[in-house]
């Protein structure tokens, strides 16, 4: 069953909101941390309410509002959010104060706003949305499971509008901590990250929401066809084959494979190996040099794929191999730290 994308909102390290042409002037970063280019939140939330919101909540609420506005929806029937790290800033504040103040005289606000479901519940509260409300937090599957949930809901009842998204933030604490695991490499140009494989990637963040429906309206013709996640897959090629067993499209129908390459050679090679066997005639593209590596980076990729389908072309900055095919079906093939692989198949319909 096709699930139509009726609207999208994306706040990312690129200028992905507003009326700018798609990736017209990509932002290049040095170092190993990418930071979102944020809009003026006053356009989306009342200033008094903004003051109480942490950065990730603002990004989530704004991206959700962008998607609903584009879709012309006032209140969705369901709000589904994926976030692996949750509200790190408030978690860090409460944790630090608790230690510094030896467990006394603590302000409850950061604690209240530290739970992962704060983003989805703040959107529900602002929109007075009393419908289904869900938050997934399975590392590299968090966004994909939001999509799967939305698809299940729409299969049962297509006549609904669902807001589904993926949101994760970097904080000073989280970045200095993750650096110690040796997963990032210093880079003079983030846009060149994927030109040479190494042993580290760059840290990213972002907030993406999609307004989805099982019913077509207006000229929306971009659909999420199928989504699947494989934890600890021992035979990645077989897992991808199984996925295509259950979809209406075949391997040869895939015009572009958008790969979640990170710049870490051993992980990237696993993706390339499957792509070269199953999709030898497809164009190949990449996206993590634009948004960085983070658990819900696949949400950025889904936004990008939908924009590519809308425009019918692949900007140079995304292309790894151009097979010069018309663009109708895009497969996002993501990996996150080796044990996580996911597929999101989008098509025009």
């Amino acid at each position, binding site marked *: 069953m096709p699930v139509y994308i009726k609207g999208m909102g994306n706040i990312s390290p690129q200028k992905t909101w507003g009326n700018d042409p798609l990736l017209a002037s990509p932002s290049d970063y040095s170092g190993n941390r990418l930071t979102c280019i944020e809009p003026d939140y006053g356009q989306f939330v009342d200033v008094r309410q903004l003051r109480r919101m942490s950065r990730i909540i603002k990004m989530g609420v704004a991206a959700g509002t962008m998607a609903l506005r584009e879709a012309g929806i006032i209140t969705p029937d369901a709000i589904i959010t994926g976030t692996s790290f949750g509200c790190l800033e408030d978690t860090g504040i409460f944790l630090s104060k608790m230690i510094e103040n030896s467990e006394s005289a603590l302000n409850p606000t950061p*604690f209240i706003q530290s739970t992962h479901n704060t983003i989805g*519940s703040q959107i529900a509260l602002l929109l007075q949305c009393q419908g289904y409300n869900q938050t997934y937090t399975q590392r590299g599957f968090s966004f994909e499971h939001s999509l799967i949930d939305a698809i299940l809901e729409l299969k049962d009842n297509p006549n609904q509008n669902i807001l589904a998204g993926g949101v994760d933030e970097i904080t000073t604490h989280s970045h200095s901590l993750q650096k110690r695991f040796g997963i990032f490499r210093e880079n003079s140009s983030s846009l060149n990250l994927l030109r040479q494989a190494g042993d580290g990637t760059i840290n990213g963040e972002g907030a993406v929401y999609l307004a989805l429906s099982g019913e077509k309206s207006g000229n929306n013709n971009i659909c999420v066809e199928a989504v699947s996640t*494989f934890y600890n897959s021992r035979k990645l090629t077989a897992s991808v084959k199984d996925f295509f067993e259950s979809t209406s499209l075949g391997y040869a129908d895939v015009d572009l494979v958008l790969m979640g390459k990170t710049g870490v050679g051993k992980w990237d090679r696993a993706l390339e190996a499957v792509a070269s066997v199953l999709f030898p005639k497809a164009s190949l593209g990449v996206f993590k040099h634009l948004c960085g590596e983070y658990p819900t980076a696949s949400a950025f990729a889904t936004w990008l794929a939908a924009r590519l389908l809308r425009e019918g072309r692949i900007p140079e900055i995304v292309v790894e191999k151009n097979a010069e095919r018309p663009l109708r079906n895009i497969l996002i093939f993501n990996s996150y730290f080796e044990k996580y692989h996911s597929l999101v198949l989008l098509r025009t319909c």
Partner: protein
Amino acid sequence: MKGRVYVAGTGVISAIGNSIPETLKSFENHSSGIGKVSLFDTIHENTLPVGEVKIPNTQLADNLSVNSSLSRTALLGIQAAREAVAASRVNVSKWRTGLISATTVGGMDKTENFFVDFLKNPSKGRLRNVVHHECGSSTELIADDLGVNGFISTINTACSSSVNAIALGARLIRHNILDVVIAGGTDALSKFTMNGFNSLMILDRNPCRPFDAGRNGLNLGEGAGFVVLVSDTVKEETRLKPSCFVSGYANTNDAYHQTASSPEGRGSFAAMQKALAMAELSPENIDYINLHGTGTLNNDLSEGTAVKRLYGDNYPRLSSTKAFTGHTLGASGGIEAVFSIMALEQQCVFPNLRFETPIPEIDMKPQLSFESDIKVNHVMSNSFGFGGNCSSIIFSRM
């Protein structure tokens, strides 16, 4: 989308027992698990009672033959999930098996210790104490222990998380995406949550009294509860004789306040009503309600009001089991689902400890004693959380 989703096995660990039989015994004996914190240092140890599992990590790990550096959330989860899978006798590697766990603290019990050194110097603190911080990490560890790969997921909708995990499992089976799902939740006590709830001033300094007029807040608890859900096909092919099935569930949002429930309990009312509609049951068909019943002024009045709106004065037997276990946050829906299934299997209901006087606004009297040999065909369990998340689930006897 067709076919029933059956419960093939359950497993639980909480302050009132490390297994199903131990838990049942505590209920029969009215034996509460609320007491002093003993396993970590906190300035609140003499003032804030908790429902602690009285087994240190080293011993939990030893009993399970796993690494003792795992987060307590993962250790508790492995214990309960293993019990559920063993009871189900389902061979997880034979089927399309998924694990859906819920947690709100994840590896926080380790992170909060790591942070003491890290705050002084960002290059300090042992990384092994923070590597399992993410909620999803505890689910990975449980999946790896059970030999589940493929579909694993974690839900964090605060204190309603586990019910949503079980509901997602049922939906994935009904849509023929998975055959077997181990679903539930796990949460360990931590200084972070103790201080968080204390800063909100909703922790009782005495053992909690859910649904009593004089209630004065909740006690935190810890533990894990998992169920093994199977499809019709699995049931037929393995000649399983399940005791009950998942008949209805619903997830709504109160959309009233970030932490407080609406006075009329609009989210909880809608969750119960939608779960009943899905189960094609009328309110009178429910024989027992396992209430969310945290013991806070706000929750119990709001939930009680919603129950009264649904039933008037003819409400079924009902109780909050949190006076036994404390509020186990993300695990509570899983633990209480296990209790609900226990009520169906044992044909019993559980007492609401320490209840004396009804809340004047609702005049509701919960079940006061453990009672067995009664007819229990349908049980509803409520779980509500911060952010307005409300979920109800109904289990029905075969």
